């Protein structure tokens, strides 16, 4: 596997500008001769499909939901970062880039991150022009707030629904292009396979989820904007439909998968209520501004919180991190919660929860102020739990939220498979081992609006590949493979539902490869996942037929891929014998914080699929820090 990061020469401030000038262009009249497939219509996919079609390319866009507006970007709450420095508080492109590189624990590619910070300012302009109703001050100018991991106020927001508003902006731009006939939108279509011809990505195979029709699509380039793989843990804050299939199918066709072990656990989620739980709900991190986190000092204390006197409470974040207190970064707050629960001091059902208590703030500020700040979040909590956080402390627990790993891409966002481009959460490049709040939206839109429109043209101008049609044998073979796989699922007729396998896989992953990992657990996991996979292919029950809307069949394909991918994630976690950001190996601990080993692991690990039953091969892309000097992340 050849990994050429294609980082342009020159000072970090000049790289993107010079690179744009050096990229070969395609004449406007010739752009319409190229067809590009875009899979996924979240922030990255919708913005890419709209922008590329505006340039003149023919676009076929696909999503598995019933409308492109449903993609899971819609659920992002907090905001989007941009280095506008509207607050006059010392923000700059360089500072945003540095915060992002440091937040990622020096495991991201700094040239990509710098470009991300650079185009962040254009994103806000573009979104305002589209009519995104960002929060405003009384003078009519845009409002900002601060967010975790930053000392400046650079986050733009639209109430608690920033992701929704940005996605609707991108969706509307996409529908504008659909109306113009420049984008063909295919909803309820799931990508089942990537098609590679002569080493280049040339198309995909989809399944129409309403009538089951398996279809081939040929193009000059393929863009995957298919999101993250958090649902390998079954319980996560991801939407139920989020899956790794598109990325995994590409990986099986030769695309390198980078850093799968980088997963982000968010500390403030509503705890699991029972075995039937289908997903976890995030409560905005902003709650930690006024809530105090605590558990009883004594293990097994089942008194109701108002019966626990002050001196028998352990405000453990304030105790351990006096300077950051309840605002300690996500990974640190998450691990601290796990630790107190492991000690038997957790609260609520199953003892997996900690209190987030607003009593002091209500006493200090009054119920009205707290309600103004967090009213919608308190209402959401009450809807889900039936408890009133104004009178009873909230219960929270960490949950899987975001995945920093993804398909490897070069500076042009192209994978090692020529023609295959990967955007947004689906790629690996910008967040290193940990993502800062309000940066996912920024990356999705940066990739789609302002990077891929430039870089894909350079590929198309230089690739010089002959046109292919779906009559090519590679397409025929891929269609046959998809049909055979579906027939296999339907023929097993075992005893267990698809969902039961997914739950079991999730539990294994969470217990041994979740917030804390160690060599022994990971080695056990690497035995347990293949055993579960073997049982799946022998004992799963997928009722119905392939020629209809078949929910169980859809799930079967996704879970089968998670059962392969989960093993890779565990293997990557085992081989990365250090702690960094969200990847915490118990052997590498510095008083509860992640201890890096820069001498051995200052690189991205990129995995090459070697076939079923074969161990994948680990390649590395060394990370070179020229602009930002790696330092120890300390929040004491």
């Amino acid at each position, binding site marked *: 596997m050849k990994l050429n990061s294609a980082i342009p020469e020159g000072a970090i401030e000049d790289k993107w500008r010079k690179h744009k000038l050096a990229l070969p262009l395609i004449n406007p009249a010739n752009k319409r001769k190229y067809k590009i497939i875009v899979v996924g219509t979240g922030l990255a996919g919708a913005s890419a499909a709209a922008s590329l079609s505006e340039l003149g390319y023919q676009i076929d866009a696909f999503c598995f939901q019933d409308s492109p507006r449903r993609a899971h970007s819609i659920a992002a709450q907090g905001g989007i970062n941009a280095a506008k420095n509207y607050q006059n508080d010392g923000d700059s492109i360089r500072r945003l880039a540095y915060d992002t590189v440091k937040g990622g624990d020096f495991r991201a590619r700094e040239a990509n991150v710098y470009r991300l910070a650079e185009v962040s300012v254009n994103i806000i302009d573009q979104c305002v*022009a589209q009519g995104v109703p960002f929060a405003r001050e009384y003078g009519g100018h845009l409002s900002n707030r601060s967010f975790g991991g930053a000392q400046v106020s650079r986050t733009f927001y639209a109430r608690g629904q920033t992701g929704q508003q940005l996605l609707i902006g991108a969706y509307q731009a996409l529908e504008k292009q659909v109306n113009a006939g420049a984008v063909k939108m295919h909803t309820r279509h799931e990508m089942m396979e990537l098609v590679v011809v002569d080493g280049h990505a040339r198309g995909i195979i989809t399944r129409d989820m309403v009538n089951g029709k398996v279809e081939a699509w040929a193009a000059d380039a393929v863009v995957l904007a298919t999101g993250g793989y958090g649902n390998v843990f079954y319980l996560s804050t991801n939407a139920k439909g989020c899956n790794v299939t598109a990325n995994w199918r590409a990986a099986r066709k030769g695309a390198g998968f980078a850093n799968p072990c980088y997963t982000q656990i968010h500390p403030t989620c509503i705890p699991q209520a029972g075995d039937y739980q289908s997903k976890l709900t995030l409560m905005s991190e902003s709650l930690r501004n006024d809530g105090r986190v605590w558990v009883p000092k004594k293990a097994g204390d089942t008194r109701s919180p108002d019966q626990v006197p002050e001196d028998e409470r352990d405000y453990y974040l304030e105790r351990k991190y006096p300077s950051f207190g309840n605002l300690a970064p996500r990974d640190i707050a998450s691990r601290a919660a796990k630790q107190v629960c492991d000690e038997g001091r957790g609260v609520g059902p199953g003892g997996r929860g900690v209190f987030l208590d607003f009593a002091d703030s209500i006493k200090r500020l009054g119920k009205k102020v707290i309600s103004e700040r967090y009213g919608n979040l308190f209402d959401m909590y009450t809807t889900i739990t039936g408890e009133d956080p104004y009178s009873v402390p909230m219960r929270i627990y960490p949950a899987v939220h975001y995945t920093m790993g993804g398909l490897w891409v070069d500076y042009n966002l192209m994978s090692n498979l020529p023609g295959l481009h990967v955007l947004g959460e689906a790629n690996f490049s910008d967040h290193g081992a940990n993502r800062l709040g309000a940066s996912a939206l920024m990356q999705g839109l940066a990739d789609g609006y302002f990077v891929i429109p430039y870089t894909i043209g350079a590929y198309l101008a230089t690739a010089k590949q002959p046109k292919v049609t779906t009559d090519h044998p590679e397409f025929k073979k891929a269609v046959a493979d998809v049909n055979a796989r579906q027939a296999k699922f339907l023929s097993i007729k075992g005893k267990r539902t698809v969902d039961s396998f997914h739950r079991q896989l999730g539990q294994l992953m969470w217990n041994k490869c979740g917030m804390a990992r160690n060599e022994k657990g990971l080695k056990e996991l690497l035995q347990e996942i293949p055993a579960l996979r073997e049982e799946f292919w022998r004992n799963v029950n997928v009722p*119905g037929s392939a020629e209809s809307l078949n929910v169980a069949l859809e799930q079967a394909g996704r879970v089968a891929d998670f059962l392969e991918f989960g093993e890779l994630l565990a293997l990557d976690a085992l081989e990365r014998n250090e702690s960094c950001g969200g990847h915490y190996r118990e052997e590498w601990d510095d008083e509860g914080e992640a201890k890096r080993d820069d001498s051995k692991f200052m690189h991205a690990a990129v995995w090459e699929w070697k076939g079923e039953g074969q161990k994948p091969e680990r390649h590395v892309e060394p990370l070179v820090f020229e602009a930002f000097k790696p330092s120890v992340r300390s929040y004491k």
Partner: protein
Amino acid sequence: MSGKLMKLTIHVWRQANKGAEGAMKSYVVENVSEHMSFLEMMDTLNEQIQAKGEEPVAFDHDCREGICGMCSMVINGIPHGGHRGVTTCQLHMRHFKDGDEIYVEPWRAQAFPVLRDLVVDRSAFDRIIAKGGYVSVNTGGAPDANALPIPKKEADLAMDAAQCIGCGACVAACKNASAMLFVAAKASHLGHLPQGQPEQLDRVKNMAMQMDAEGFGNCSNLSQCEAVCPKEIPVRVIAEFNRDLIKAQFKG
């Protein structure tokens, strides 16, 4: 702790595909915890159905946190079940009691054909947006975001309407299956912003024409839509829409 456990009888619409005849079918679901969401109850039902070799009940769902707009069930006759500001996925079983019989149906509207069981085709909404539910601006070249101040009050009114999740409950609740609340919410979102002004009259005209072409009914101002809207979009957006529509007709 799984809370109080209930045994429920669920009467649910089963329909094999778009062209097939459908019918209500009854199932008994056991061990339903009061802490479950309505969709988790449906998951439990599906696990029990599949254990008997039957195909699960198909229903649309995705984020399960009330924002994607995918979930869509008429529960005991009311879209999303009748709790103010709540989508089906956020409705919890503590609002039901042991022994209850619950009727679960898909959205009913000519413009939303049933694809299977509780899954309906809402692509008509996308086609309406495509006729004008946007600002015609291409990527690149936008002026600085703070170049044009927008009064906070107007921005807030735009945001109130922009919160629409496109679930279609408004259509399902309306006796005429009108899409007025959905269409007017989009017009109000963009109409309250200076960026949306240049195209506003064409926007309302073109979206109204597409709404009619898709087979949605007319609005008779009964406000059922507002009552079931999980984002509590106010009917004032419909008044604004009608005002703009009249202006557009005069303008010709």
